[in-house]
């Protein structure tokens, strides 16, 4: 398996740079950057600016999201921060506060 998983009990304080898919189930504070997809699962807490490919968010993100592909804020997600992406979906039940920039 060539991806990074940050499990539910784990806290990372600092910078994460990945060339591969990242799945967050735990806590990340600082900065998270990946060239591939980033998944923030239910119960996860990300207090960081996040750069990545496509995003699937079910957990909580406090910080700005910048995507080269798309951002999907799924039901149960909670995002406070600006989102910059070509395509964005916000599902029913998602909480979002911030600006959206779709490069128009």
């Amino acid at each position, binding site marked *: 398996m060539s991806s990074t998983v940050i499990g539910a009990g*784990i806290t990372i304080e600092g910078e994460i740079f990945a060339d591969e898919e990242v799945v967050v189930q735990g806590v990340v504070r600082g900065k998270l950057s990946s060239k591939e997809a980033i998944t923030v699962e239910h119960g996860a807490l990300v207090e960081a600016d996040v750069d990545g490919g496509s995003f699937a968010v079910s957990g909580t993100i406090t910080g700005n999201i910048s995507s080269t592909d798309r951002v999907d804020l799924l039901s149960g997600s909670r995002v406070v921060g600006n989102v910059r992406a070509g395509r964005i979906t916000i599902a029913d039940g998602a909480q979002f506060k911030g600006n959206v920039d779709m490069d128009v």
Partner: protein
Amino acid sequence: MADATVIGRGTRIRGKVSGSGDLEIDGQVEGEVSVEGDLTVGSTGIVSSDLAGRRIIVRGAVQGDVTGEESIALEDGARVVGTVRAPRVAILPGALMRGRLEVGDFGVAPPARVTTSSQSKPSSPSRVATTSHFAPARAPAASAASAQSRVPAPPVIAQPRASAQAAHAAKRIEVASPPPRHSEVSALALDVEQEQEEEGPPSSEMPVPLNSDENSIEIPSVPSIKKGARGMLAKKR
């Protein structure tokens, strides 16, 4: 939900990684790693930080202190520079290590060692003296010991377990050679080693761990090496 955390081989982390649960590092980590569960540094893992976990398995590169609450295994492909500290440490063929090795109980009681009894010698007066060394604990243990010294039975059991373990740990620690800490002075240190012996014990500036008397390696500190080097040069002139 999968509880296992994996830092993939394409991932670099600069900062602190902590928490409960198991952790596998196949990527690069710079900072501090401290988990309550098991910790594995895979063959592609590169860690330049202190590591702490319950059971630690290393197959990759680690620069920093490795502290295992239960055990540490340096497996094939491991390259470790730093202090390795755990109640039980295994260094398997193919593992490389440079640094201090501390094996034994450091406040944490390891499981009882049956193998120590085979190394113990049969009854002798010195053994009885050793037992009486632990006079404060005379109540149950020493009475058993005195009972055994009356009856000429193998009094292996009478020996305090702690000292037996310490002796065992000390025995095992002898396998590791005292490592040069600073590569730039290591060549010098080889030349200077004899000078140091003449000048007496080196000034101990290295942090000395608990019960260092028996299971620690004397690592000559840098200033003393330099002092030795000056001494050597002075003698040459």
